[in-house]
């Protein structure tokens, strides 16, 4: 049984009202969410303490200028919030935060998490060109038509976990056809239920497990299997991997925006990864030539090894890639395989240990003996 | 270990107590994380106050100390000593200046109290990020290397020889330098060669002084108290000799301005045009006179040759000109000597005496600009502008050019060897032109004589004795020297080896490690100025007591 708060207003207005309610009642001291900047069509994550500033908040804006889970982990890296704060996170952002907490990179104390059943976000390259609200309107009208919005990130199209795991409050968005006139908040935890006290609306109980509408879910599944098949062809096998990453400019932007890549100095930027004279000699002798700067592929393989187990599939990496490499798709493919191997879902819960940190006697028996 | 910060506010009589509500301040800071005690005291810098602090640190087992009182300039050292006495590392201490920066300038008690809280919070937050630093002591070698065996070098060596071994190195084949070429020294007109020879005898008889002529300095490594010097004889196949010394004196002397200007005066083309040095030499050799052997009846002495090009006044040429006038008048009675000067630079009493003597002997002084020489019949025609307008001419038999003083020819080479920079005019740069005129920016390397700028012999000797004073006081046999605790560090994993820090380090404290491709700080040499930390774009270099983190933390609290 889950407690549910039903409201007779559109979700975008309702969430702002809810947040305002939290601030005004002092239930939380600040809200971490997307906020419009002074420049038109620019949003960024902000910590908002003044209820008046909530007018600028735009929690479900279909753009992800950074994985908020990663950002929240950096803010709470040294110590947790001392006063309660509400954070509005997309499911993949919430899962990234959980992964980071497991790795001691963030501290969840005093944070109430509000997440949504996510319909996806626009690629940054596209949203950077928006000059009006047209694309945003299209996004919301697609949702109210029960469809998956157009022009969203590839990673969103194939997203396996649009339903958040472990959030205190869940706001259904994807598939809600009356999204602009009514909405409901699922109060998953006691904390969540307590926060909703005093909000106008009808409190009830629902047994029904929240789902995306079937249409969207099946669409995403179809996309996933198509992508998987395609990736079998394009990525599997060394030659193809090389080809996929051939246009990599070594900007390492994928690492910079990846919420899971929390290292200050990446192994692949360190002096250990610099070209060594003897490598040059060997390569010249063997092949007559060597690509410089070297290590393009090694970087991606290495990064896969380090973080694929925790990849939450948010798609930031693909978004910032100047060479249009489908980084996130490759990572999804590899991540999925590794995660399945250990029956591990990154970000499912803080308690679930990261597979490489625990030893199970009977694991990986297939590769032994 | 859990952090236990003690916060103590000094009432400073009515100075702070009268302007700030100290009790409210204490209450506010006591609730902060890590603060174990917060107390006030009448006068913390008093004997009782210091005793009180020592007891407090011990009693409460404090790990960090914060004092809110006057300016750190006044009592930071006092309280750091308190830390030491109480067994706390003195760098785990931070002082908030709440007297000068708050109490004295904030009439409103309410505001002053708020500000005091901010200042203390900032100090508390900063001290959390302090690390214990250690003051190290190192053994020293008291011996001294003197580079250059002219007047500056030998007088320095003589002052030092009684207490330690002194090595005097000169690339030439004998000591004595240029002063040996003068009959007399201006302005005092004492017999120069006699004095120099006297000095040289002193050097010869001093067992502690080793003279190495025909020798070049090849390499210098190390730091104050522990230099390792490699020397090699000129053109010799022999092995390099290695010396260990604690201090180095740069006494390279001067060379006349190597000036194309000379040829503008017809030097080298017109007969009987000499430089002052040539004339001195001829005088000492007893060959003073015209090139054909005759006696000159009239001589023009041209001042400020090369001054405009060099951009500075060489200080001693005016008196040298007068000295030469005296030589000439003594050797050739009845001779007409004219000095063509721009400005007479004759500071002090001695110079005035010489000037008056030259005038008494009949020397004519003409303020002249645009002096030009040309041959006319068997005379030299000097044309010049008097008082910037009238062009006049004067035919003379002989002309002496007073050529300015330039840096020693070896300046650049030695500068590179020692990492002591050259500055204005190409001379060695002093640590501070006014209050540290004989030290270089590198501790343990000193400058004497004309190496740091033109000067006369008395001033040169004064500098040599001053260097001796510095060395005798600072490098005592058997005494260790303390190094700076607040030094810089370079993080190996971040350093790209670009050596920008090396360029900006004033103390030669950073070296480049070829094998590892990174820069390394020598903690003994580092004075903690922080230049490297400011210049390093990647933040690999940082100052241990002023890390970005410490500074940001402090600022963050102040601007909250």
């Amino acid at each position, binding site marked *: 049984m889950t407690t549910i708060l039903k409201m007779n207003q559109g979700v975008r207005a309702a969430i702002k009202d809810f947040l305002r309610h939290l601030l005004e009642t002092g239930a939380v001291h600040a809200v971490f969410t997307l906020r419009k900047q002074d420049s038109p069509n620019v949003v960024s994550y902000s910590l908002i303490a003044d209820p008046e500033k909530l007018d600028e908040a735009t929690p479900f804006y279909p753009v992800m200028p950074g994985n908020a889970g990663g950002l929240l982990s950096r803010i709470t890296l040294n110590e947790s919030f001392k006063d309660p704060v509400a954070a509005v996170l997309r499911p993949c952002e919430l899962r990234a935060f959980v992964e980071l907490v497991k790795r001691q990179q963030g501290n969840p104390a005093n944070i109430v998490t509000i997440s949504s059943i996510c319909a996806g976000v626009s690629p940054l390259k596209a949203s950077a060109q928006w000059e009006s609200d047209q694309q945003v309107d299209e996004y919301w009208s697609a949702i109210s038509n029960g469809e998956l919005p157009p022009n969203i990130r590839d990673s969103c199209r194939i997203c396996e976990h649009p339903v958040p795991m472990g959030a205190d409050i869940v706001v259904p968005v994807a598939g809600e056809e009356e999204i602009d006139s009514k909405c409901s908040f699922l109060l998953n935890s006691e904390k969540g239920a307590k926060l909703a006290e005093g909000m106008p609306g009808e409190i009830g109980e629902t047994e029904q497990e929240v789902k995306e509408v079937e249409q969207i879910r099946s669409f995403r599944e179809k996309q996933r299997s198509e992508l998987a098949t395609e990736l079998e062809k394009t990525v599997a096998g060394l030659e193809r991997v090389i080809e996929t990453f051939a246009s990599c400019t070594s900007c390492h932007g994928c690492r910079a925006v990846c919420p899971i890549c929390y290292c200050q100095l990446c192994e692949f930027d360190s002096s250990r990864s610099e070209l060594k004279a003897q490598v040059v000699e060997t390569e010249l002798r063997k092949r007559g030539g060597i690509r410089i700067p070297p290590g393009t592929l090694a970087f991606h393989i290495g990064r896969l090894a380090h973080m694929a187990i925790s990849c939450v599939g948010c798609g930031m990496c693909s978004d910032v890639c100047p060479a249009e490499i489908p980084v996130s798709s490759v990572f999804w493919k590899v991540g999925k395989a590794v995660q399945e191997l250990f029956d591990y879902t990154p970000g499912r819960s803080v308690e679930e240990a990261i597979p490489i940190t625990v030893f199970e006697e009977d694991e990986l028996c297939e590769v032994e003996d | 270990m859990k952090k236990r910060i003690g916060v103590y506010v000094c009432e400073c009589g009515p100075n702070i107590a009268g302007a700030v509500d100290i009790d409210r301040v204490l209450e506010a800071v006591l609730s902060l994380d890590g603060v174990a005690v917060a107390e006030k005291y009448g006068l913390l810098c008093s004997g009782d106050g210091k005793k009180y602090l020592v007891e407090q640190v011990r009693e409460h087992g404090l790990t960090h100390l914060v004092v809110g009182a*006057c300016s750190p300039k006044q009592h930071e050292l006092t309280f750091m000593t308190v830390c030491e006495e109480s067994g706390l590392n003195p760098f785990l201490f931070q002082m908030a200046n709440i007297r000068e920066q708050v109490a004295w300038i904030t009439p409103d008690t309410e505001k002053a109290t708020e500000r005091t809280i901010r200042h203390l919070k900032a100090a508390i937050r900063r001290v959390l990020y302090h690390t214990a630093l250690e003051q190290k002591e190192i053994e020293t070698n008291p011996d001294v290397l003197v580079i250059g065996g002219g007047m500056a070098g030998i007088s320095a060596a003589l002052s030092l020889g009684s207490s330690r071994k002194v090595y005097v190195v000169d690339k030439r084949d004998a000591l004595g330098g240029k002063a040996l070429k003068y009959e007399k020294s201006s302005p005092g007109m004492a017999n120069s060669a006699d*004095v120099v020879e006297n000095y040289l005898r002193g050097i010869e008889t001093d067992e502690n002084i080793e003279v190495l002529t025909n020798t070049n300095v090849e390499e210098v490594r190390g730091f104050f108290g522990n230099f390792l010097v490699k020397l090699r004889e000129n053109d010799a196949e022999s092995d390099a000799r290695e010396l260990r010394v604690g201090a180095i004196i740069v006494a390279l002397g001067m060379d006349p301005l190597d000036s194309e200007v000379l040829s503008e005066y017809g030097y080298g083309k017109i007969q009987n045009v000499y430089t002052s040095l040539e004339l001195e030499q001829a005088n000492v050799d007893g060959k003073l006179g015209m090139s054909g052997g005759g006696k000159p009846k009239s001589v023009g002495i041209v001042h400020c040759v090369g001054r405009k090009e060099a951009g500075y006044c060489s200080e001693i040429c005016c008196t040298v000109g007068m000295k030469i006038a005296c030589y000439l008048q003594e050797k050739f009675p009845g001779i007409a000597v004219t000095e063509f000067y721009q400005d007479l630079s004759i500071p*002090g009493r001695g110079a005035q005496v010489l000037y008056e003597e030259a005038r008494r002997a009949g020397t004519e002084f003409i303020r002249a600009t645009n002096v030009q020489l040309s041959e006319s019949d068997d005379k030299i025609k000097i044309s010049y502008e008097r008082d910037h307008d009238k062009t006049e001419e004067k035919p003379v038999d002989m002309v002496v050019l007073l050529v300015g003083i330039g840096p020693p020819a070896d300046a650049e080479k030695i500068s590179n060897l020692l990492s002591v920079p050259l500055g204005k005019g190409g001379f060695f740069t002093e640590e501070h*032109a*006014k209050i540290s005129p004989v030290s270089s920016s590198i501790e343990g390397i000193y400058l004497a004589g004309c190496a740091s700028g033109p000067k006369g012999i008395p001033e040169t000797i004064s500098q*040599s*004795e001053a260097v001796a004073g510095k060395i*005798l006081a600072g490098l005592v046999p058997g005494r260790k020297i303390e190094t700076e605790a607040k030094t810089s560090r370079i993080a190996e994993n971040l350093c790209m080896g670009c050596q920008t820090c090396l360029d900006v380090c004033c103390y030669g404290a950073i070296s480049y490690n070829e094998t590892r491709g990174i820069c390394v700080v020598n903690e003994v040499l580092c004075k903690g100025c922080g230049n490297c930390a400011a210049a390093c774009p990647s933040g690999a270099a940082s100052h241990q007591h002023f890390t970005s983190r410490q500074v940001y933390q402090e600022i963050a609290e102040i601007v909250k």
Partner: protein
Amino acid sequence: MSQNAEVADQILVIGAGMAGIEASLTLAAAGKNVYLVEREPLFGGQAIKCEEVFANMECATCMAAPMQQEVLQNERIELLTLSDIKEVQGVAGDFTAKITKRARYVDSEACIGCNACFDPCPVSLPNTFEEDLGERKAIYISCPGALPNVPAIDTENCVRFAGEECNLCQEACMFEAIDFDQKDEEIEVRVSAIIVATGYDLQDVSQIAGVEYTESGNVYTAREMERLYASNGPTEGKIVLRSGKEPTSAAIVHCVGREDIGYCSAVCCMYSFKFVHYLTDKLPEIKLYEFVSDLCIPGKSYQAFYEKLKDKAQITRFQNLAISQQDDTATISFQTPSGEDNTLEVDMVILAPAIVPAKGASELAEVLGIRYGEAGFYGTESGIQSGVDSGRQGVYLAGCAQGPKDIARSITQASAAVGRLLASTD
């Protein structure tokens, strides 16, 4: 300071200007114990009267203060202010000096320098440290920032010492630092050597023929100019005439009194051009004249300084110069090098007087038994030597006491005196 320390390790330094400070610090570093005797209630000499010093226009107090602080904090240096040397007996290696330490009437240990005692004092009088351009009380420190930061009572002007029942300052002091019962002390010290660094004075310009200078007119001495520009001076750095007006024109006259004293004072040309910087810095519109006889700007860095400033003033060569004062102006009459007579009227005249031996120099020389020349400077400038010789063994000279020189040379000579001293005792 340890009473039992060997005499060999005790040194007396007379005069706590830059040279005396440098000598004391170097001696202390060498492990010597130093008595640093200063006549005035503050120390730092003439340098700290300047706001900035040539050629780098460095803040003089910022340059001196760290050295002064070091003196105050150094356990090996005992600074005796308000003190005079009365007698010196003995020979090199064992001198006995008698010092009179005049009472300050303020306990230096108890006083924290909060200045609370000034306000209530009923007496105001011209501040001689400020060349009488500002006022002070009978209990006073010479200027903000003066060290030691402990006031002194001027008994000649204090009403209590004139017999009145005043203890206002004592009442204002929270630290019970004011002690009217303090007495002058006679101190006897045994030292192995003495360094004399008593500095210089400026020639009294009112005695110079042809120069009309009164303390109320528009003619100023160089030192008055220094205090006018000083941020801790009587006008807090505002350049105004005694009338309160800003000058629109000023003439800086070099070599004042040079003919009388018969030598060049070495530093006046440089500081006269420094004044061009001072004046144009504060009063950009001011019209400036420099009256120059011979430019004396020796050394590698001084000419560049001159070049930077020379175009900001009209430079005139002169001979036979006379100065007279009017109500709002001053008039300079002079001859150009070609002999033409000329006059110039300006709002302000600044004189660069000659550097002469410090007041009482010859008397002190008699006490110390050292040589002094015709002009009254100690030692000699002749011969080939550094000038630190005083003519008496064990007594060394440093700084302008030996002859006019700039700060760098004073400091060099102070180190040299220490060098000679240490070399002879090691």
